[in-house]
Protein backbone atom coordinates (compact mmCIF):
# COMPACT_ATOMS: atom_id res chain seq x y z
CA UNK A 1 0.00 0.00 0.00
CA UNK A 2 1.35 3.42 -0.93
CA UNK A 3 0.32 6.60 0.82
CA UNK A 4 0.60 10.05 -0.74
CA UNK A 5 0.81 13.54 0.74
CA UNK A 6 -2.78 14.12 -0.30
CA UNK A 7 -3.83 10.96 1.59
CA UNK A 8 -2.13 12.31 4.72
CA UNK A 9 -3.94 15.62 4.31
CA UNK A 10 -7.26 13.89 3.81
CA UNK A 11 -6.77 11.78 6.97
CA UNK A 12 -5.75 14.87 8.95
CA UNK A 13 -8.89 16.56 7.68
CA UNK A 14 -11.04 13.62 8.83
CA UNK A 15 -9.31 13.73 12.22
CA UNK A 16 -9.80 17.52 12.52
CA UNK A 17 -6.09 18.22 12.92
CA UNK A 18 -4.62 21.17 11.02
CA UNK A 19 -1.50 20.16 9.12
CA UNK A 20 0.75 22.16 6.79
CA UNK A 21 2.62 20.90 3.73
CA UNK A 22 5.91 20.32 5.53
CA UNK A 23 4.28 18.42 8.39
CA UNK A 24 2.29 16.35 5.90
CA UNK A 25 5.48 15.37 4.05
CA UNK A 26 7.28 14.42 7.26
CA UNK A 27 4.23 12.51 8.49
CA UNK A 28 4.04 10.65 5.19
CA UNK A 29 7.53 9.21 5.66
CA UNK A 30 6.75 8.04 9.19
CA UNK A 31 3.31 6.64 8.41
CA UNK A 32 4.67 4.75 5.40
CA UNK A 33 7.23 3.05 7.67
CA UNK A 34 4.56 2.16 10.20
CA UNK A 35 2.23 0.80 7.51
CA UNK A 36 5.06 -1.37 6.19
CA UNK A 37 5.30 -2.88 9.67
CA UNK A 38 1.52 -3.36 9.78
CA UNK A 39 1.50 -4.99 6.31
CA UNK A 40 3.10 -8.14 7.80
CA UNK A 41 -0.39 -9.00 9.10
CA UNK A 42 -1.56 -9.78 5.58
CA UNK A 43 0.69 -12.86 5.34
CA UNK A 44 -1.55 -14.85 7.69
CA UNK A 45 -4.73 -16.49 6.42
CA UNK A 46 -7.56 -15.48 8.74
CA UNK A 47 -10.50 -16.34 6.48
CA UNK A 48 -12.03 -18.69 9.07
CA UNK A 49 -11.24 -16.65 12.20
CA UNK A 50 -13.83 -14.59 14.08
CA UNK A 51 -12.66 -11.07 15.00
CA UNK A 52 -11.88 -10.54 18.70
CA UNK A 53 -12.93 -7.08 19.77
CA UNK A 54 -12.44 -7.50 23.46
CA UNK A 55 -10.31 -9.38 25.99
CA UNK A 56 -13.25 -10.69 28.00
CA UNK A 57 -16.41 -12.09 26.47
CA UNK A 58 -18.84 -10.23 28.69
CA UNK A 59 -22.31 -8.98 27.92
CA UNK A 60 -23.18 -5.34 28.34
CA UNK A 61 -24.63 -4.71 31.79
CA UNK A 62 -28.04 -3.11 31.94
CA UNK A 63 -29.54 -1.17 34.81
CA UNK A 64 -32.86 0.33 35.78
CA UNK A 65 -33.62 3.66 34.12
CA UNK A 66 -33.18 5.69 37.28
CA UNK A 67 -31.52 9.02 38.00
CA UNK A 68 -28.13 8.24 39.50
CA UNK A 69 -26.21 11.47 38.93
CA UNK A 70 -26.75 14.85 40.49
CA UNK A 71 -26.61 18.09 38.50
CA UNK A 72 -23.04 19.42 38.56
CA UNK A 73 -23.25 21.75 35.61
CA UNK A 74 -21.62 24.70 37.33
CA UNK A 75 -18.69 22.62 38.54
CA UNK A 76 -18.13 21.01 35.16
CA UNK A 77 -18.49 24.27 33.28
CA UNK A 78 -16.05 26.04 35.58
CA UNK A 79 -13.19 24.49 33.59
CA UNK A 80 -14.65 25.17 30.12
CA UNK A 81 -12.86 27.56 27.74
CA UNK A 82 -15.98 29.69 27.21
CA UNK A 83 -19.43 29.50 28.78
CA UNK A 84 -22.37 31.85 29.12
CA UNK A 85 -25.65 31.36 30.97
CA UNK A 86 -24.96 27.67 31.45
CA UNK A 87 -24.14 27.10 27.79
CA UNK A 88 -20.83 26.15 26.15
CA UNK A 89 -19.94 28.81 23.60
CA UNK A 90 -18.57 27.93 20.16
CA UNK A 91 -18.30 29.99 16.96
CA UNK A 92 -21.60 30.51 15.19
CA UNK A 93 -22.57 27.48 13.09
CA UNK A 94 -25.96 28.44 11.64
CA UNK A 95 -26.48 31.82 9.95
Amino acid at each position, binding site marked *: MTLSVSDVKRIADLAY*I*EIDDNEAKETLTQLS*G*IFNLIESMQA*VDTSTVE*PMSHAQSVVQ*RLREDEVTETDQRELYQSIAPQVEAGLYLVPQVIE
Partner: protein
Amino acid sequence: MFNASLKQLSIQLAGKKISSTELTSEFLQRIQQLNPEYNAFITVNEELSLAQARAADQMIAAGQAGPLTGIPIAQKDIFCAKGWLTTCGSKMLSNFVSPYDAGVIERFNQAGAVNIGKTNMDEFAMGSSNETSYYGPVKNPWDHAAVPGGSSGGAACAVAARLACAATGTDTGGSIRQPAALCGISGIKPTYGLVSRYGMIAFASSLDQGGPMAKSAEDLALLLNVMVGFDARDSTSLQREAEDYARDLQKPLTGLRIGLPKEYFAAGMSNDVASAIEKALDEYRKLGAQTVEISLPNAPLAIPVYYVLAPAEASSNLSRFDGVRYGHRAESYSDLADMYRKSRAQGFGPEVKRRILIGTYVLSHGYYDAYYIKAQKLRRLIAQDFADAYQQCDIIMGPTTPTVAFNLGEKSGDPIQMYLSDIYTSAANLTGMPAMSIPVGFGDKNRPIGLHIIGNYFKEAQMLNVAHQYQLATDWHNQSPV
Protein backbone atom coordinates in the same frame (compact mmCIF):
# COMPACT_ATOMS: atom_id res chain seq x y z
CA MET B 1 12.50 4.87 55.88
CA PHE B 2 12.61 5.60 52.13
CA ASN B 3 13.56 1.97 51.53
CA ALA B 4 10.96 0.49 53.89
CA SER B 5 8.32 -1.89 52.56
CA LEU B 6 4.65 -0.97 52.73
CA LYS B 7 4.17 -3.57 55.44
CA GLN B 8 7.00 -2.11 57.56
CA LEU B 9 5.64 1.41 57.12
CA SER B 10 2.16 0.28 58.03
CA ILE B 11 3.45 -1.28 61.26
CA GLN B 12 5.37 1.91 62.14
CA LEU B 13 2.31 4.05 61.46
CA ALA B 14 0.02 1.78 63.48
CA GLY B 15 2.53 1.73 66.35
CA LYS B 16 2.71 5.57 66.29
CA LYS B 17 6.49 5.38 65.68
CA ILE B 18 5.89 7.87 62.90
CA SER B 19 2.86 9.86 61.78
CA SER B 20 1.59 10.07 58.22
CA THR B 21 2.14 13.83 58.40
CA GLU B 22 5.83 13.27 59.18
CA LEU B 23 6.19 10.58 56.54
CA THR B 24 4.43 12.70 53.91
CA SER B 25 6.52 15.78 54.78
CA GLU B 26 9.74 13.77 54.42
CA PHE B 27 8.72 12.55 50.97
CA LEU B 28 7.58 16.03 49.90
CA GLN B 29 10.95 17.40 50.96
CA ARG B 30 12.72 14.68 49.05
CA ILE B 31 10.66 15.41 45.94
CA GLN B 32 11.38 19.14 46.26
CA GLN B 33 15.09 18.39 46.47
CA LEU B 34 15.40 15.72 43.75
CA ASN B 35 12.55 16.24 41.29
CA PRO B 36 14.23 19.16 39.46
CA GLU B 37 16.82 16.61 38.31
CA TYR B 38 14.49 13.63 37.64
CA ASN B 39 11.32 15.41 36.44
CA ALA B 40 9.31 12.44 37.71
CA PHE B 41 6.40 14.59 38.90
CA ILE B 42 4.28 17.00 36.88
CA THR B 43 2.33 18.27 39.87
CA VAL B 44 3.08 18.31 43.58
CA ASN B 45 0.51 19.89 45.88
CA GLU B 46 1.78 19.99 49.46
CA GLU B 47 -1.45 21.39 50.81
CA LEU B 48 -3.63 18.59 49.38
CA SER B 49 -1.13 15.85 50.31
CA LEU B 50 -0.72 17.09 53.88
CA ALA B 51 -4.48 17.41 54.35
CA GLN B 52 -4.80 13.73 53.39
CA ALA B 53 -1.93 12.86 55.75
CA ARG B 54 -3.66 14.62 58.65
CA ALA B 55 -6.90 12.78 57.87
CA ALA B 56 -4.95 9.50 57.78
CA ASP B 57 -3.43 10.25 61.19
CA GLN B 58 -6.97 10.69 62.53
CA MET B 59 -8.03 7.37 60.99
CA ILE B 60 -5.04 5.69 62.64
CA ALA B 61 -5.80 7.34 66.00
CA ALA B 62 -9.43 6.18 65.73
CA GLY B 63 -8.30 2.61 65.07
CA GLN B 64 -9.75 2.63 61.54
CA ALA B 65 -6.50 2.17 59.64
CA GLY B 66 -6.05 -0.29 56.78
CA PRO B 67 -2.75 -1.53 55.33
CA LEU B 68 -2.23 1.58 53.16
CA THR B 69 -3.57 4.25 55.52
CA GLY B 70 -1.16 7.17 55.73
CA ILE B 71 1.21 5.88 53.05
CA PRO B 72 2.34 8.32 50.33
CA ILE B 73 1.61 6.95 46.86
CA ALA B 74 2.35 8.70 43.57
CA GLN B 75 -0.51 8.78 41.07
CA LYS B 76 0.10 8.67 37.35
CA ASP B 77 -1.16 11.89 35.79
CA ILE B 78 -3.66 9.87 33.72
CA PHE B 79 -5.92 9.39 36.78
CA CYS B 80 -8.35 12.24 37.38
CA ALA B 81 -8.06 13.46 40.97
CA LYS B 82 -10.46 16.08 42.23
CA GLY B 83 -8.80 19.47 42.70
CA TRP B 84 -5.54 18.26 41.11
CA LEU B 85 -4.17 19.38 37.79
CA THR B 86 -4.56 16.25 35.62
CA THR B 87 -2.66 16.69 32.36
CA CYS B 88 -2.08 13.19 30.94
CA GLY B 89 1.30 14.61 29.91
CA SER B 90 -0.35 16.81 27.28
CA LYS B 91 -0.60 20.49 26.46
CA MET B 92 -4.22 19.66 25.59
CA LEU B 93 -4.97 19.19 29.31
CA SER B 94 -2.35 21.55 30.72
CA ASN B 95 -5.17 23.64 32.26
CA PHE B 96 -7.40 20.75 33.35
CA VAL B 97 -8.08 20.68 37.08
CA SER B 98 -10.22 17.60 37.47
CA PRO B 99 -13.69 18.16 38.94
CA TYR B 100 -13.95 14.50 39.98
CA ASP B 101 -12.00 11.47 41.20
CA ALA B 102 -11.19 8.41 39.12
CA GLY B 103 -12.39 5.06 40.52
CA VAL B 104 -8.81 4.16 41.41
CA ILE B 105 -8.27 7.48 43.21
CA GLU B 106 -11.51 6.97 45.15
CA ARG B 107 -10.35 3.56 46.29
CA PHE B 108 -6.97 4.91 47.47
CA ASN B 109 -8.75 7.77 49.23
CA GLN B 110 -11.08 5.35 50.99
CA ALA B 111 -8.06 3.30 52.06
CA GLY B 112 -6.59 6.47 53.61
CA ALA B 113 -3.55 6.57 51.31
CA VAL B 114 -1.89 9.91 50.63
CA ASN B 115 -1.59 11.18 47.04
CA ILE B 116 2.00 12.46 47.06
CA GLY B 117 1.84 13.91 43.55
CA LYS B 118 0.99 13.30 39.91
CA THR B 119 3.70 11.57 37.90
CA ASN B 120 5.08 12.42 34.50
CA MET B 121 4.20 10.21 31.54
CA ASP B 122 4.29 9.98 27.78
CA GLU B 123 1.57 12.17 26.29
CA PHE B 124 -1.77 10.32 26.58
CA ALA B 125 0.34 7.25 27.52
CA MET B 126 1.61 6.99 23.94
CA GLY B 127 5.30 6.25 24.15
CA SER B 128 7.91 3.92 25.58
CA SER B 129 10.47 6.42 26.86
CA ASN B 130 8.55 9.24 28.55
CA GLU B 131 10.01 11.55 25.88
CA THR B 132 6.65 12.44 24.32
CA SER B 133 5.53 14.23 27.51
CA TYR B 134 4.67 17.91 27.08
CA TYR B 135 6.39 18.33 30.45
CA GLY B 136 9.73 17.01 29.24
CA PRO B 137 11.54 13.71 29.62
CA VAL B 138 12.17 11.89 32.90
CA LYS B 139 15.63 10.61 33.79
CA ASN B 140 16.38 7.01 34.65
CA PRO B 141 17.62 7.15 38.26
CA TRP B 142 20.22 4.41 37.55
CA ASP B 143 21.81 6.39 34.75
CA HIS B 144 20.75 9.93 34.01
CA ALA B 145 21.68 9.55 30.34
CA ALA B 146 19.05 6.79 29.94
CA VAL B 147 15.28 6.89 29.53
CA PRO B 148 13.12 5.51 32.36
CA GLY B 149 10.84 3.76 29.85
CA GLY B 150 7.23 4.65 29.34
CA SER B 151 4.56 5.51 29.37
CA SER B 152 4.57 5.27 33.19
CA GLY B 153 8.15 6.62 33.27
CA GLY B 154 7.59 9.15 36.04
CA ALA B 155 5.98 6.48 38.23
CA ALA B 156 8.86 4.04 37.71
CA CYS B 157 11.43 6.76 38.39
CA ALA B 158 9.58 7.92 41.52
CA VAL B 159 9.58 4.41 43.00
CA ALA B 160 13.19 3.62 42.02
CA ALA B 161 14.50 6.98 43.28
CA ARG B 162 12.46 6.56 46.47
CA LEU B 163 10.37 9.70 45.86
CA ALA B 164 7.23 7.74 46.77
CA CYS B 165 6.53 4.48 48.62
CA ALA B 166 4.73 3.10 45.57
CA ALA B 167 2.96 4.37 42.47
CA THR B 168 0.13 3.68 40.09
CA GLY B 169 0.63 3.14 36.40
CA THR B 170 -1.44 2.16 33.40
CA ASP B 171 -0.55 -0.37 30.75
CA THR B 172 -1.91 -0.41 27.19
CA GLY B 173 1.02 -2.14 25.46
CA GLY B 174 3.60 -2.45 28.23
CA SER B 175 3.45 0.93 29.96
CA ILE B 176 3.72 -0.50 33.49
CA ARG B 177 6.06 -3.42 32.79
CA GLN B 178 8.57 -1.80 30.42
CA PRO B 179 9.39 1.19 32.69
CA ALA B 180 9.39 -1.13 35.74
CA ALA B 181 12.01 -3.27 33.96
CA LEU B 182 14.11 -0.31 32.84
CA CYS B 183 14.07 1.27 36.32
CA GLY B 184 14.66 -1.96 38.28
CA ILE B 185 11.33 -2.10 40.11
CA SER B 186 8.29 -4.43 40.18
CA GLY B 187 5.04 -3.72 38.38
CA ILE B 188 1.91 -5.64 37.44
CA LYS B 189 -0.78 -5.19 34.84
CA PRO B 190 -3.76 -7.11 36.18
CA THR B 191 -6.29 -9.06 34.09
CA TYR B 192 -8.30 -6.67 31.92
CA GLY B 193 -11.44 -5.57 33.75
CA LEU B 194 -10.19 -5.89 37.34
CA VAL B 195 -9.15 -2.26 37.89
CA SER B 196 -11.69 0.47 37.15
CA ARG B 197 -11.06 2.60 34.08
CA TYR B 198 -13.51 5.26 35.29
CA GLY B 199 -11.65 8.58 35.33
CA MET B 200 -8.54 6.98 33.86
CA ILE B 201 -8.06 9.04 30.71
CA ALA B 202 -8.70 6.63 27.84
CA PHE B 203 -6.08 5.73 25.25
CA ALA B 204 -7.19 2.34 23.81
CA SER B 205 -10.16 1.20 25.86
CA SER B 206 -10.04 -2.52 25.08
CA LEU B 207 -6.35 -2.66 26.12
CA ASP B 208 -5.95 -0.04 28.90
CA GLN B 209 -5.56 -1.39 32.42
CA GLY B 210 -4.35 0.31 35.58
CA GLY B 211 -2.01 -1.39 38.01
CA PRO B 212 0.53 -0.84 40.78
CA MET B 213 4.30 -0.23 40.60
CA ALA B 214 6.40 -0.81 43.70
CA LYS B 215 9.66 -2.05 45.18
CA SER B 216 8.52 -5.66 45.63
CA ALA B 217 5.86 -8.25 44.78
CA GLU B 218 4.69 -8.19 48.38
CA ASP B 219 4.00 -4.43 48.09
CA LEU B 220 2.19 -5.02 44.77
CA ALA B 221 -0.15 -7.49 46.48
CA LEU B 222 -1.16 -4.92 49.12
CA LEU B 223 -1.72 -2.28 46.43
CA LEU B 224 -3.79 -4.64 44.27
CA ASN B 225 -5.98 -5.39 47.27
CA VAL B 226 -6.95 -1.71 47.22
CA MET B 227 -7.02 -1.08 43.47
CA VAL B 228 -9.08 -4.07 42.29
CA GLY B 229 -12.85 -3.91 42.56
CA PHE B 230 -16.04 -3.61 40.56
CA ASP B 231 -17.06 -0.15 39.37
CA ALA B 232 -20.48 0.24 37.77
CA ARG B 233 -19.25 3.38 35.99
CA ASP B 234 -16.82 1.35 33.87
CA SER B 235 -18.79 -0.74 31.38
CA THR B 236 -16.04 -3.37 31.18
CA SER B 237 -15.44 -3.65 34.93
CA LEU B 238 -15.75 -7.25 36.09
CA GLN B 239 -18.04 -8.31 38.93
CA ARG B 240 -16.08 -10.85 40.94
CA GLU B 241 -15.66 -11.79 44.55
CA ALA B 242 -12.90 -9.88 46.33
CA GLU B 243 -9.58 -11.71 46.60
CA ASP B 244 -6.65 -11.27 48.94
CA TYR B 245 -3.75 -11.03 46.51
CA ALA B 246 -1.24 -11.69 49.30
CA ARG B 247 -2.81 -15.02 50.26
CA ASP B 248 -0.40 -17.24 48.31
CA LEU B 249 2.85 -15.30 48.75
CA GLN B 250 4.42 -17.94 50.98
CA LYS B 251 3.60 -21.01 48.87
CA PRO B 252 6.62 -23.06 47.73
CA LEU B 253 7.21 -23.29 43.99
CA THR B 254 7.82 -27.04 43.87
CA GLY B 255 6.37 -28.49 40.71
CA LEU B 256 5.60 -25.12 39.09
CA ARG B 257 5.79 -25.47 35.30
CA ILE B 258 7.30 -22.38 33.70
CA GLY B 259 6.69 -22.05 29.96
CA LEU B 260 9.44 -20.41 27.92
CA PRO B 261 8.11 -19.26 24.53
CA LYS B 262 10.78 -20.02 21.94
CA GLU B 263 9.68 -16.92 20.00
CA TYR B 264 10.72 -14.73 22.98
CA PHE B 265 14.14 -16.34 23.27
CA ALA B 266 15.02 -15.71 19.65
CA ALA B 267 17.03 -13.10 17.77
CA GLY B 268 16.46 -9.55 18.97
CA MET B 269 17.20 -10.08 22.65
CA SER B 270 20.57 -8.63 23.63
CA ASN B 271 23.20 -10.82 25.29
CA ASP B 272 23.16 -9.04 28.65
CA VAL B 273 19.39 -9.47 28.92
CA ALA B 274 19.57 -13.12 27.80
CA SER B 275 22.18 -13.93 30.43
CA ALA B 276 20.27 -12.24 33.29
CA ILE B 277 17.05 -14.03 32.30
CA GLU B 278 18.89 -17.36 32.16
CA LYS B 279 20.27 -16.78 35.68
CA ALA B 280 16.81 -15.94 36.96
CA LEU B 281 15.44 -19.14 35.43
CA ASP B 282 18.24 -21.09 37.13
CA GLU B 283 17.13 -19.57 40.42
CA TYR B 284 13.58 -20.73 39.71
CA ARG B 285 14.85 -24.25 39.00
CA LYS B 286 16.63 -24.16 42.37
CA LEU B 287 13.33 -23.14 43.94
CA GLY B 288 11.75 -26.32 42.60
CA ALA B 289 10.18 -25.12 39.36
CA GLN B 290 10.69 -26.82 36.02
CA THR B 291 10.92 -25.08 32.66
CA VAL B 292 9.29 -26.27 29.46
CA GLU B 293 9.68 -24.88 25.97
CA ILE B 294 6.41 -23.65 24.52
CA SER B 295 5.49 -21.90 21.29
CA LEU B 296 3.41 -18.81 20.62
CA PRO B 297 3.56 -18.94 16.81
CA ASN B 298 1.65 -15.69 16.26
CA ALA B 299 3.62 -13.72 18.86
CA PRO B 300 5.64 -11.82 16.23
CA LEU B 301 2.36 -10.32 15.00
CA ALA B 302 1.56 -8.69 18.33
CA ILE B 303 3.27 -5.41 17.41
CA PRO B 304 1.60 -4.93 13.98
CA VAL B 305 -1.79 -5.92 15.45
CA TYR B 306 -1.27 -3.59 18.38
CA TYR B 307 -0.36 -0.68 16.08
CA VAL B 308 -3.65 -1.08 14.25
CA LEU B 309 -5.97 -1.63 17.21
CA ALA B 310 -4.47 0.84 19.71
CA PRO B 311 -4.39 3.81 17.28
CA ALA B 312 -7.88 2.94 16.02
CA GLU B 313 -9.29 3.08 19.53
CA ALA B 314 -7.19 6.14 20.34
CA SER B 315 -8.43 8.09 17.33
CA SER B 316 -11.96 7.52 18.54
CA ASN B 317 -11.24 8.23 22.23
CA LEU B 318 -9.24 11.39 21.54
CA SER B 319 -11.97 12.89 19.37
CA ARG B 320 -13.43 14.24 22.64
CA PHE B 321 -10.62 16.79 22.88
CA ASP B 322 -12.13 19.55 20.77
CA GLY B 323 -11.60 22.68 22.85
CA VAL B 324 -15.30 23.01 23.75
CA ARG B 325 -15.92 21.63 27.23
CA TYR B 326 -12.42 21.55 28.72
CA GLY B 327 -8.79 21.58 27.74
CA HIS B 328 -6.88 23.68 25.25
CA ARG B 329 -8.71 25.97 22.82
CA ALA B 330 -6.81 27.87 20.12
CA GLU B 331 -6.78 31.64 20.56
CA SER B 332 -7.93 32.56 17.08
CA TYR B 333 -9.94 30.68 14.47
CA SER B 334 -12.31 31.42 11.62
CA ASP B 335 -15.18 29.02 12.33
CA LEU B 336 -16.10 25.94 14.39
CA ALA B 337 -14.24 23.39 12.23
CA ASP B 338 -11.19 25.67 12.20
CA MET B 339 -11.39 25.91 16.00
CA TYR B 340 -11.35 22.11 16.28
CA ARG B 341 -8.48 21.78 13.79
CA LYS B 342 -6.32 24.47 15.39
CA SER B 343 -7.05 23.47 18.99
CA ARG B 344 -6.13 19.86 18.24
CA ALA B 345 -3.07 20.75 16.15
CA GLN B 346 -1.78 22.94 18.99
CA GLY B 347 -2.85 20.73 21.90
CA PHE B 348 -1.49 17.38 20.70
CA GLY B 349 2.20 16.52 20.27
CA PRO B 350 3.66 14.73 17.22
CA GLU B 351 3.35 11.13 18.50
CA VAL B 352 -0.28 11.57 19.53
CA LYS B 353 -1.11 13.12 16.15
CA ARG B 354 0.68 10.28 14.40
CA ARG B 355 -1.41 7.69 16.22
CA ILE B 356 -4.66 9.56 15.65
CA LEU B 357 -3.83 9.65 11.94
CA ILE B 358 -3.00 5.92 11.80
CA GLY B 359 -6.23 5.15 13.63
CA THR B 360 -8.32 7.43 11.45
CA TYR B 361 -6.87 5.79 8.36
CA VAL B 362 -7.40 2.16 9.42
CA LEU B 363 -10.99 2.96 10.37
CA SER B 364 -11.73 4.93 7.21
CA HIS B 365 -13.95 3.74 4.39
CA GLY B 366 -12.36 1.01 2.29
CA TYR B 367 -9.63 0.10 4.80
CA TYR B 368 -11.66 -1.08 7.78
CA ASP B 369 -11.72 -4.77 6.79
CA ALA B 370 -8.13 -4.88 5.55
CA TYR B 371 -6.68 -3.42 8.73
CA TYR B 372 -9.03 -3.19 11.67
CA ILE B 373 -10.96 -6.45 11.21
CA LYS B 374 -7.81 -8.25 10.09
CA ALA B 375 -6.05 -7.14 13.30
CA GLN B 376 -8.99 -8.30 15.41
CA LYS B 377 -8.85 -11.72 13.78
CA LEU B 378 -5.14 -11.99 14.50
CA ARG B 379 -5.83 -10.89 18.04
CA ARG B 380 -7.91 -14.03 18.43
CA LEU B 381 -5.10 -16.21 17.03
CA ILE B 382 -2.66 -14.65 19.50
CA ALA B 383 -5.08 -15.32 22.39
CA GLN B 384 -5.56 -18.91 21.18
CA ASP B 385 -1.76 -19.42 21.21
CA PHE B 386 -1.68 -18.49 24.89
CA ALA B 387 -4.67 -20.72 25.71
CA ASP B 388 -2.87 -23.64 24.02
CA ALA B 389 0.38 -22.84 25.84
CA TYR B 390 -1.33 -22.96 29.23
CA GLN B 391 -2.15 -26.62 28.57
CA GLN B 392 1.57 -27.29 29.03
CA CYS B 393 2.59 -24.82 31.73
CA ASP B 394 1.28 -22.83 34.71
CA ILE B 395 2.99 -19.55 34.01
CA ILE B 396 5.03 -18.01 31.17
CA MET B 397 8.37 -16.23 31.51
CA GLY B 398 10.70 -14.30 29.27
CA PRO B 399 12.43 -10.94 29.06
CA THR B 400 10.28 -7.83 29.62
CA THR B 401 12.31 -5.83 27.10
CA PRO B 402 14.84 -6.82 24.42
CA THR B 403 17.52 -4.48 25.80
CA VAL B 404 18.31 -2.43 28.88
CA ALA B 405 17.22 1.24 28.92
CA PHE B 406 18.33 3.12 25.82
CA ASN B 407 19.74 6.64 25.87
CA LEU B 408 17.59 9.76 25.98
CA GLY B 409 17.13 10.88 22.37
CA GLU B 410 18.37 7.58 20.94
CA LYS B 411 15.03 6.42 19.51
CA SER B 412 12.85 9.51 19.72
CA GLY B 413 13.26 10.23 15.99
CA ASP B 414 12.37 6.70 14.91
CA PRO B 415 8.83 5.64 15.87
CA ILE B 416 9.25 2.04 14.69
CA GLN B 417 12.36 1.39 16.79
CA MET B 418 10.47 2.88 19.74
CA TYR B 419 7.45 0.64 19.07
CA LEU B 420 9.63 -2.47 19.02
CA SER B 421 10.65 -1.94 22.64
CA ASP B 422 7.17 -3.30 23.51
CA ILE B 423 7.71 -6.45 21.45
CA TYR B 424 7.29 -8.84 24.39
CA THR B 425 4.68 -6.91 26.36
CA SER B 426 1.83 -5.98 23.99
CA ALA B 427 0.45 -9.54 23.61
CA ALA B 428 -0.77 -9.51 27.23
CA ASN B 429 -2.83 -6.41 26.45
CA LEU B 430 -4.30 -7.93 23.31
CA THR B 431 -5.31 -11.08 25.22
CA GLY B 432 -6.19 -9.25 28.46
CA MET B 433 -3.99 -11.57 30.52
CA PRO B 434 -2.18 -10.39 33.65
CA ALA B 435 1.56 -9.78 33.28
CA MET B 436 4.29 -8.36 35.47
CA SER B 437 7.95 -7.43 35.53
CA ILE B 438 10.42 -7.93 38.37
CA PRO B 439 14.10 -6.89 38.52
CA VAL B 440 16.58 -9.74 37.94
CA GLY B 441 19.93 -8.03 37.53
CA PHE B 442 21.91 -5.48 35.58
CA GLY B 443 23.26 -5.40 32.05
CA ASP B 444 25.12 -3.02 29.78
CA LYS B 445 26.24 0.19 31.59
CA ASN B 446 24.86 -1.26 34.82
CA ARG B 447 21.27 -0.62 33.73
CA PRO B 448 18.47 -2.83 35.19
CA ILE B 449 16.90 -5.89 33.53
CA GLY B 450 13.35 -7.15 34.08
CA LEU B 451 11.89 -10.66 34.01
CA HIS B 452 8.47 -10.81 32.37
CA ILE B 453 5.95 -13.09 34.07
CA ILE B 454 2.69 -13.71 32.21
CA GLY B 455 -0.12 -15.51 33.98
CA ASN B 456 -3.40 -17.00 32.88
CA TYR B 457 -6.56 -14.91 33.45
CA PHE B 458 -7.12 -14.02 37.14
CA LYS B 459 -3.88 -15.69 38.26
CA GLU B 460 -2.47 -12.57 39.91
CA ALA B 461 -2.11 -14.22 43.33
CA GLN B 462 -0.09 -17.05 41.78
CA MET B 463 2.11 -14.61 39.83
CA LEU B 464 2.78 -12.57 42.96
CA ASN B 465 3.67 -15.81 44.77
CA VAL B 466 6.11 -16.71 41.98
CA ALA B 467 7.66 -13.24 42.10
CA HIS B 468 7.79 -13.10 45.90
CA GLN B 469 9.55 -16.45 46.25
CA TYR B 470 12.25 -15.21 43.88
CA GLN B 471 12.54 -11.99 45.87
CA LEU B 472 12.96 -13.97 49.10
CA ALA B 473 15.89 -15.81 47.51
CA THR B 474 17.54 -12.82 45.79
CA ASP B 475 17.99 -9.14 46.55
CA TRP B 476 17.81 -7.39 43.16
CA HIS B 477 14.56 -5.73 44.25
CA ASN B 478 16.25 -4.21 47.31
CA GLN B 479 18.91 -2.47 45.27
CA SER B 480 18.38 1.21 44.81
CA PRO B 481 20.14 3.81 42.69
CA VAL B 482 20.04 6.39 45.48
